[in-house]
């Protein structure tokens, strides 16, 4: 079962991959990247010249001992991270 969120989170990267992130006042450590993909933004719907890219990461991460699967999204245009989905 997965739950959909969409909360802004804070994340730190190492070698271009998410390494740790802060969600709902808890710090998570990324153990493993399960999947990673990107999509271009639908540039024709905006008037901005910056194309931007949305980078998705599905990771195994843990705040303590319990490992969960989390899907994070990074938007290059806004330079912000979101927590998209969580599997438990």
């Amino acid at each position: 079962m997965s739950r959909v969120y969409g909360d802004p989170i804070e994340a730190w990267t190492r070698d271009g991959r998410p390494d740790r992130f802060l969600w709902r006042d808890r710090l998570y450590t990324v153990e493993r990247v399960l999947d990673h993909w990107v999509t271009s933004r639908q540039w024709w719907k905006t008037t901005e010249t910056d194309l931007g890219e949305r980078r998705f990461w599905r990771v195994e991460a843990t705040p303590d001992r319990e490992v969960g699967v989390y899907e994070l999204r990074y938007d290059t245009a806004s330079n912000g991270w979101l927590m998209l989905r969580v599997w438990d």
Partner: protein
Amino acid sequence: MRPFTHLHVASAYSLRYGAAFPAALAARAAELGMDALALTDRDGIYGAVKHVQACVKAGIRAIVGVDLVLADDSAPGKPARVTLLAKPGGWGALCRVASAAHLGQAGARGAPAVTRESIAEQAQGELVLLLGRGSDVGRAVAEHRFDDARDLFRRWREAVPDLAVEVVDQYGYREASTAARMLAFADRVRAKAVLTNQVRYADPQDAPVADVLDAARRLAPLHPRHLDQSTSHAYLKSGKEMLEVAERICGPDRAAIGRLLHTTREVAEGCVLDPDDVLAMRVGRVHLPEVGRDPVPLLRNHCEDGLIRRGMERSKTTRARLEDELRVIERKNLSGYFIVIAEIASMIRHIPVRCAIRGSGAGSLVNHLIGISEVNPIEHGLLMERFLSDGRIGLPDIDLDVESAARLDCYRAIYERYGETRMACVSMMETYRARSAIRDVGAGVGLPPHEIDVIAKAFPHIRARQIRAALNDLPELRASGLDQAQLRQVFALAERLDGLPRHIAMHPCGVLVGNGGLRDRTPVQHSLMGFPMSQFDKDDVEEAGLLKLDVLGVRMQSAIAYTLSEISRVDGVTVDPDAVPRDDAATYDMICSGRTLGCFQIESPGQRELVAKLEPRTVHDLIVDISLFRPGPVNSDMVTPYLETRHGWRVAKYPHESLREALAETHGVVVFHEQVLRVVDAVTGCGLSHAEKVRRTLSDPDRRQDVRRWFLANARPDFDPATVERVWTILEAFGAFGFCKAHAAAFALPTYQSAWLKRHHTAAFFAGILTHEPGMYPPRVILDDARRCGVEILPLDVNRSGRNWEVEKRPTPDGPVYGLRVPLSAVKGVSDAEVERITAGRPYTSLADFWARARPSRPVAERVVEVGGADGLYGLSLAGPRWRPGRLTRRDLIAQVGALARGPSGAGAQMPLEFTERIEPGELPEMTEAEAVRAELEILGMDVSRHVVGFHEELLAELGVVRSRDLLRCRNNSSILVAGVKVATQTPAVRSGQRVIFVTLDDSTGPVDLTFFESVQGACAATVFGSWLLVARGVVRRTGARAVSLRAEACWDLPALEELRAAEGPDAVRSLVRRAPATRDGGVGGRAIEYGNGYRLSPYADLGPVPSPAAGLAASVPSARLWHASQGSSGDTGRRQYLPRH
């Protein structure tokens, strides 16, 4: 680690798919430290030659392949594709497989496809097959159908043993896992696996361009489901980035990553092509048809026969010249080439079709002797070196001019003589320009079609990348309100399509002829007209060492042929234009007075001004005139010194006495290329061959300094340094822009012939011009000129009009009067079959008879009646009262067409009117003359019964408008009002680098030429381009003994003035035109393009030579074209009322 090699790359030559040109891709690959690059364009190898050239230039090795659709695919909509790469020596096989896709059973025209069998047949161990995610195998793997995948793969391996599985990951959703499965599949079937990036563009920033191309290709709006990629990763990635891709696919298994990159490299190494296989011309491998015998003695024999036939066998100088030419030809191994061309020229003349040589080839004595050219080069002082010299690489160009209407007959003759596999037309890429780019992008973002049309047409024919600059620079566009936020993105995107190939088309004249191996040298497909067509353009075929012949359709040749047939039909006289005297005073009088509309090369407003100043009296004068009227000479101001010396206002000056011989024919001014050669040779003694090499470098700013040093160092001792410097300055300024005299000599002949025919067989000449439309002017302008020349214009008549314009002779006591009958083909929307039926069924006794036997469609029948085509059946005339009960009117007849169409439609039965609805004669009012003319303009595209300006006579008289016939009486520098119908707008290149608009008006008494400089364009440009009927104020400039031109100060839309007059009275109009125009907003922007020698060019000037021969080649002319608008002219922006409302 060895560098990565991209094996799957599409360039812009993958139409509406790739976004980068081969040169950019090769340069980028070299920058990234790669040592080889593949190009695998889609559906053909259109970019292959350019790719190999680019790789050679970038210092990397070239791999060439093709990406083709698989015909036996079960999923329609998104066809499966496979990629093939040529192994060393496999160039021929690649060409054949690309041809097979287009010509084979599997593909249809416009939808090329291959089958496993057709690939197997062509591959024969010379091609490597890549099966990627788009292949049938790849799809089966992606859909987890492993058994299917294994089965399909086994069949591929049997057909093409040399194959590899291709894995791609462009970072889209689940792409990495699919790629990993593909890799696992390769392992399982023990196949090689290669990593590619399916490149579509060089930089990630170009992804939107690829998106727009996807939408344009699918004729669908931009939406993720219409796009090939959801990411911007289909770019030429670096080796490091590709390693990251490999890591994504292989996971942490370092050995697997190494293996994948290693096999990729291995396949690349096995597919490097020898560039000389493709660029055969570099190594002198010329591909000629089989002649059957040793061509060297054969050509010598032909020349010897020619000497005798032309009566030149006794002349020593001729023999010496012939020997020189033959030696050059034999050194270059081109004897066979000349034999083939001579054979083709003779074949065309035997069809029979008028055929003449054009261009520098007229300078060769061999061409003259073996019957390719009728011009005797010795008599005209023409040089072979301009055409063929030792220093020149490549095949010489021989161009043949034939009747445009018979061009395809010539192609057919060549096709039949050499056979399908030994002949092909040359292709050309039509590229995105402003209007086409706006259309495709507009459709992509979902603008309504009619809005797209209006927006696109508002722009002049400029490059797509100039769109936003033009919006700023041009006053008529600034005023158009196009610069809106919603449109900005459309324009920005349209600019990015600039120059990308959009569509492949048959080149208008290039034909390839070869031997049985032609299709190992070039891939072919079917052209629209069914001829085999090479996938290479004219530059590529030359690089590939193929024999290209230009067979140009020249409309003027067709017009002359038609004129001759009309003269013989009506007057029973046979005229041979080649035999008419070349010194006819009446003809030259007509030329000198500028009445040259319709004449070859000298009909444009600028040329009419020039001939009036130059006053030609001989064919040589015409040769000079044609050579001078080029952007170069006009810009470098060669015209003024020439004219002044010609008319004796100043003495001809020669930099050195020994140059007199070369320059005397043009009074000391360098006009011809041939003169540049002679001058260089006279000063340095380097020989004409080397002089030709020097001339070619004159136009190259980078190398000009080297040539200058060479020239100064090698001048002969009897030239002092100051003189040499002076000569160099002249050469530098004029040399690059001179004109090939041989070319001008070939042009001058039809120029003179057309003028002679216009002067002596006026009606027949106009019939030829109106039928074949060789020139720049629309029919209504030509018709008006015919009227002024005393030819009657006879209205459409179903019993008299033919398919084409025909001359009718009417005897009168003062001798015969000639008239021109409007043809049926001029009626808007009429089909060939209808014209055929109407002419076959003549004569008709009534409208019902016409309806029943000619069986026209209803709209066509109505149009025919509306412009008076049935008046003759009932003796109708528009004169008299409009309401005339009891007497038939044209409107009654139109109503009758409706009744006939509604009535019973017995097949072919002649239905008396009584059985259909009864129309009372005179029930409807007669049309007014204004309505009739409006109908004529609408339906025939010309005003037949009356000149449109005639409806505004009252207003023009009130304003004191000066008419064309009275212009010569105006004082120089006086400010006057003129008016008329717009005939032409041009924005040619001029010396100052301004955009200057030349406008020709026609006021029913003759043409009025106006010049709008940038200072007045702010207020005038929108009116000039948008209106059809104009009133203008201008300052009189005398330009020659019998020529006047006006510098425009202001202009108005004539119908708008009529409205003002109706609303506020004549005084309001008078005071309006007296006021100084308020400059609405600044003038024309945009920086002039400046060349090294001071030549400046407005970025909105028309491209190409001013009196472009292409004008005579224009494939199709819209039937309702009312005026000529050159490329630099903006479009119409609003609806106009042409005639006053009654």
